């Protein structure tokens, strides 16, 4: 193995940091893929995979992806909710991997809500 120079530390850090950023629990955008039984049956796994592939292909480091339970609108699954700063959460319905790709570039990266696929803005009020 080649001996390290001080500037090599950055390169190593850069390489592993992406997987580790998750552990800080902070991100610019938070995406929840609804993976209840209904969601999975409707293809939520493919949605999750498409999302993770996009993140990897675009080398994005500040997007947190989590699985969430059934959002209550089982007939419109697969669904995902996107929480971006200064925006109310947006729920997308009837997703396909291609739609995810579009939402990724326009909403997650560009901050523009893709109204064609969106169900509504906002989440339920808790308590």
């Amino acid at each position, binding site marked *: 193995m080649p001996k*390290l120079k001080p500037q090599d530390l950055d390169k190593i850090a850069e390489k592993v940091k992406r997987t*580790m950023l*998750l*552990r800080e629990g902070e991100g610019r955008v938070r995406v*929840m893929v609804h993976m*209840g039984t209904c969601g*999975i049956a409707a293809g939520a796994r493919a949605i999750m995979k498409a999302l993770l592939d996009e993140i990897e292909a675009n080398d994005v480091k500040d997007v947190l992806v*989590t699985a969430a*339970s059934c959002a209550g609108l089982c007939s419109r699954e697969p669904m995902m909710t996107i929480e971006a700063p200064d925006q109310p959460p947006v729920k997308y319905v009837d997703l396909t991997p291609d739609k995810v790709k579009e939402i990724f570039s326009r909403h997650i990266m560009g901050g523009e809500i893709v109204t064609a696929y969106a169900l509504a803005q906002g989440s339920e009020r808790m308590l």
Partner: protein
Amino acid sequence: MVYRTNAMICTCTNCISNGALQVKDALEKEIKKQHLENDVRVVPTGASGLCVKGPILVVQPEGIFYQLLTVEAVPHLVEEHFLKGRPVKSLMYVPPGEEAPIPNIRDIPFFKNQRLIALRNRGLIDPDEIEEYIARDGYRALAKALTSMTPEKVIAEIKASGLRGRGGAGFPTGQKWEFCRASPETPKYIICNADEGDPGAFMDRSVLEADPHSVLEGMTIGAYAMGGTQGYMYVRAEYPLAIKRMKRAVEQARDYGLLGKDIFGTGFDFDLDVFQGAGAFVCGEETSLIASIEGQPPEPRMRPPFPAQSGLWGKPTNINNVETWANVPVIINWGAEWFSQIGTDTSKGTKVFSLAGNINNAGLVEVPMGITLRQIVYDIGGGIPNRKSFKAVQTGGPSGGFIPSDLLDLSVDYDRLQEAGAIMGSGGMIVVDEETCMVDMAKYFLEFTTSESCGRCNACREGLQAMYQILTNICAGQGKDDDIELLEELAPAVKDGSLCALGRTAPNPVLTTLRYFRDEYEAHIKEQRCPAGVCKALIAYSIDPEKCKGCMLCVKNCPQGAISGEKGQPQTIDQEKCIKCGACHEVCKFEAVTVR
């Protein structure tokens, strides 16, 4: 490879002994079964801290904290949380006396009230992967020191930070380094003391298991500052996992050229060997430790000369404790000014404590200096279990002392603790409740130091034995009127006549219990009574006929068949047969069994 979830499973010795490795295997198997292996990554970490609740799993990025995991719970957990995104409430932490679980680790008071410097990477990195340490600013302080600071500047920075030795005595670290640097002889040796021997203490083990590179980096910076070329990591043999992880860390650091010749291409050479401790308590004393590395019997020697002038093989040597070394990279990275803002006037930074004894959240905590004992015991430790009340906290292990409840608001720093008769020590903190006899506790520690005395100094070897005998007599109901005076006469004799700190501090548990709980000694001697109901020769169990419902639970649990009576009627204990095991007292639901 991008994952959406990191499942951080604690694999410290505590959690492993509770089955963490089996849980980890089950997790990986189940994740595969649910086809989530490309979504969820299982990461082994060290020292999550809430040891009493292990095995522990923290799921990131949500920060959900799961405790007391079993292999059987894993399939449900994986399906519900990892697949369907529904965190499992039944596996979450519930604060003592409450019912609602706290899902997020950042909201649990035990974690929320801590400040992590030495343990900055705990639960966040895989200790076996040097790259993960590097990704969290690892080895940057070493690069900074080697490329932009002179050795004198490094020492000045450590001095300005106010860092004091975390091994017990609290000697200013920068000053110690300066002495060693000033010694003209070469080569110079740099040693890490990881011979953690206090009963109930596991701070150093946790640092080594969770973050071995932080200690290596600290030592290498120290070597640069003092002109050291060879290091020794002296780890007690009873810590096999710490030794394994440290050896792996040393190999990885060598592969990357962070140990060995020409580190970072700057021409600086330093290498290090892991040395297994010889098994005696006294090996943690610095001159004994040096003798042990040399292959001599571990016995302390006269000082001066101090190790900084003549240590290992007669050469200048610097010894610091694990936690001290782990602080060094942070001080270099963040600066002395930042570090010195944490803590009190005379005690800077944080201190790691292992909380043990009668306390709800037994485990490992790191807190800023100056925090009160009350905050540690109640806010972080969650108070005393089984609705009993706090009696005292013991700090500093066999060298320390007991601090009573009216000093709970004492601020934790080197000097306040010393004024109270205890010491900071390496960070063992044992909490005892009202049903603990202080004479018996003092006897316990004396038994430990008596058997661990290396025998070199008469005062320690014979004096502690004599003190132990007196305490044994008092607990057996054979105390004499002048025993307390005799103990008070022997204690300073042992202190004055011992070469090393272990002998000089061994009487502390007796002295502090005499200072704060003298009435208990007097009750034992004058009234033949053990107020806490512990010393078997001085107590008797009896059943209060007013309170006894005749449920006969005590009858079933008595190993001697000493309890008799009709069902539904008050029971009685045959004092001839009773062996005072206390089983009836433990099981009675009506508090009808009394101890006198």
